[in-house]
Every structure is written in structure tokens, then in C-alpha cells.
């Protein structure tokens, strides 16, 4: 007996519910835009510039005591964050605008050891600094990378599916913008750090999402060629149901791996794993409920315009 997770004759009505899901997606995207503009992403040192110092103490301490000890150095605004498990006694200290960067690690170690004494030694394990201009340039380049990737993929898909309809490209671009907004909104809410690794994960989400969109679009193109007399929404629904098994199995296996990374990956991998996790869910969703309805709206609009022009 073969294993069938999705019955081969499955016939769910995806297209019929498109208005509800398009409305839902619109609300979510508007909320994401609001969050991005009001709260903003939690940019890492790569994008804002500044210094990050990783410190290990021999015994437990608190962020407030560290901040107090570092006050004497007059290094500007300081953020102290617990890093790792409690018994590791490690902290990340961030400085956005260090007034004097020279021998930062040594000065911090000296100030902390003077405050804590020999009872609780501080060891500076790592100091990393990114200049403010570099941070700004990386932010601009990161945004451009996402925008250019999205546009080029939309243009390519529109060209490849031109024989059926130019709107496939528009559907793909709108689906990608939707995915980026949803993932960005999730990152704002989660307050995960947005660094170069998270940006790479976001670009991976775009690649994954467009791949899924192409699978569905290609099946629509294939079925449209075979069933010329059938209405477009019926063809679309059939195509989505036919690719559902492949979509769910591919997404499901990827999500299983990502769930493991989220749970066990540690604080460095967690933001990227979270980005990919949300991105794969929304990428799968947008291929069905965003890209396909856009094509349908476009085609219906053109047929109505054509019919009105002939009647006039």
C-alpha cells in the first residue's frame, strides 16, 4: 500500500475564497508597513555601525551593574544584553557611537575588573566594529538587493509566461512583495536582530517563494493549453489542487528542518531560521492566494474591457 498524504483526486476550492484571503493579506501587509515605519527593524551592528563587545564573567552578574561599571569610560550610549545560557555569564555590549575606539577591549576589561575586583573577573572575548558609513551603505545595498531580485524575477516570469498572460509576472512580483512585507513585519514583532545573515535568509525566501509560484503558474499554463473552453478560475483551481501534494511535501520537509534549527540552532542562527520559517509559510500561501488571484483579476478585467469595447 503506497503512502498518500494528499489524495490524488483532491478538489479544494482555493480560487473561490480568494477575496477573503486577498483582503486578509492586504490587512496584514498594511500592518507590516505600519510596524516597519513606526517601530522599525532591530538592525544589527552590520547595518547601524558601532561596536559590539562580547564579555565573559567568572561569576553571574547583571546588565545594570555592567552598564554602571562602563559609565566611567564615557563611551556614549551603551546597550547590554544577556548572551547565551545563564551559567555561561556572557554578555553582549553594544556601542552605537564610540567616541574613542582605540584599545576598546582593554579599556572595557580594565573598567570592569576595577569595579568587580578579583572576585569576578571579566574577559573580553570579542570586539567587532563597523563604521557608521559602512552600516548605512550596507542598509542601502541590502534593500537594493531585495528590490532588484524581485523586479528581475517578475520581468523574467512575465516574459516566460507571455503567451498565456503578462499578468503572471505581476502576480509573482506582488506575491514576493507580500512575502517580504510579512517576513519583515514578523521580524519587527519578534525583535530578532536584522543582520547580514537575516538578509541572506530574506533573499532565500524570495528565491523559494518565486520557485513555488512558478510551479503553480506553469501548471496553470499547461492546463490552459489543454482546456481552452474551460473558464480560467476552474483551470486555476485544478492546477493548484494538482500541485498541492508537491507544495505541501516540499514546504513541510523544509519547515521540519527549520523548526529544528529554531529550537536548537542557538542565538546566532535563530533569526535566520525564524526568517526562513515564516518566509516558507508565507511563500507557499502567496503562490496560491496572491499570485493566482492577481492573474484572475487581470484577465477578468481585460475580458470585461474587451467585451465593453465590442458592445460600444
Amino acid at each position: 500500500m503506497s503512502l498518500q498524504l494528499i489524495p490524488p483526486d483532491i478538489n479544494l476550492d482555493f480560487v473561490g475564497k480568494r477575496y477573503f484571503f486577498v483582503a486578509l493579506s492586504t490587512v496584514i501587509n498594511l500592518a507590516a508597513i505600519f510596524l516597519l515605519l513606526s517601530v522599525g527593524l532591530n538592525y544589527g551592528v552590520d547595518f547601524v555601525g558601532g561596536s559590539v563587545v562580547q564579555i565573559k564573567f567568572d561569576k553571574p552578574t547583571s546588565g545594570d551593574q555592567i552598564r554602571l561599571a562602563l559609565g566611567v569610560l564615557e563611551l556614549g550610549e551603551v546597550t547590554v544584553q544577556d548572551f547565551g545560557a545563564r551559567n555561561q555569564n556572557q554578555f553582549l555590549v553594544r556601542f552605537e557611537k564610540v567616541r574613542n575606539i582605540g584599545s576598546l577591549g582593554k579599556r572595557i576589561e580594565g573598567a570592569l575588573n576595577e569595579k568587580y575586583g578579583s572576585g569576578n573577573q571579566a574577559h573580553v572575548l570579542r570586539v567587532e566594529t563597523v563604521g557608521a558609513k559602512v552600516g548605512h551603505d550596507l542598509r542601502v545595498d541590502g534593500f537594493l538587493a531585495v528590490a532588484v531580485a524581485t523586479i528581475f524575477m517578475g520581468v523574467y516570469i512575465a516574459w516566460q509566461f507571455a503567451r498565456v498572460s503578462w499578468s503572471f509576472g505581476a502576480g509573482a512580483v506582488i506575491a514576493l512583495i507580500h512575502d517580504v512585507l510579512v517576513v519583515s513585519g514578523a521580524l519587527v514583532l519578534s525583535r530578532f536582530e536584522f543582520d547580514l545573515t537575516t538578509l541572506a535568509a530574506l533573499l532565500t525566501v524570495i528565491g523559494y517563494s518565486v520557485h513555488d509560484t512558478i510551479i503553480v503558474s506553469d501548471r496553470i499554463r499547461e492546463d490552459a493549453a489543454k482546456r481552452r473552453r474551460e473558464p480560467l478560475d476552474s483551470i486555476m483551481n485544478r492546477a493548484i489542487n494538482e500541485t498541492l501534494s508537491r507544495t505541501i511535501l516540499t514546504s513541510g520537509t523544509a519547515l521540519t528542518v527549520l523548526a529544528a534549527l529554531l529550537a536548537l540552532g542557538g542565538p546566532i542562527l535563530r533569526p535566520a531560521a525564524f526568517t526562513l520559517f515564516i518566509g516558507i509559510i508565507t511563500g507557499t500561501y502567496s503562490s496560491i492566494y496572491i499570485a493566482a488571484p492577481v492573474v484572475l483579476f487581470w484577465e477578468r478585467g481585460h475580458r470585461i474591457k474587451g467585451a465593453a469595447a465590442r458592445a460600444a
Partner: protein
Amino acid sequence: MALEIVTGRGVYRILAAAPLECTSVNVVLTLAMERADGIERVVTRCRVARELVGEPPESDAIIERLKGWLAREFELTREAALKAIRSERRLHEIIFDQANRGPF
């Protein structure tokens, strides 16, 4: 004592970040690699078999022996050290023994 090495990322100072730890079998040196302008510091550990170092073991002598090796292997060592500190929250350890004598 801090020695300087010239790397592709600029001049780095190599110095002992903690007192030398000696056992009957090994000598462990906690080493800090600090960029001369202070914008970067990475700490790593170096475990050397006792028979490869002189008696009594001294941090300065070991750093002097490591200098040339570190200058050649800097990128890999720096990358491994940063990765260990960031992801595993532990210090990367370089091991030198009879099978892998390195600069000793």
C-alpha cells in the same frame, strides 16, 4: 609582552589574555589577537604539549614561536575563533602536539 603581525586586515597585536595554565601534559595559553587601531579583538586558546615547549614554560616565548605561524594562518584562525565565540560561546582551541607540531 605584545608582538605585532601584519595581516591582510591590517596590523594585529598578539598578547596573552590570561595567565599561562600548566599541567603535566599540556600548556594552555589564552591568546588575544587585537587590531592595532582597537576596532577588533578576538580571543583564542592554544594548547601545546609540554614536551614541545621549554622549561619552565613562558607566555612570551610561546607567543614568539607562534608569531610566524599566526601570520600565515591568520584568516582561518580568526574565522574559527569568531565562529566559536559567536555561535558556541566558547573559545576556539588550537592544539599542537607530536602529531601536529606547528611552529614548535
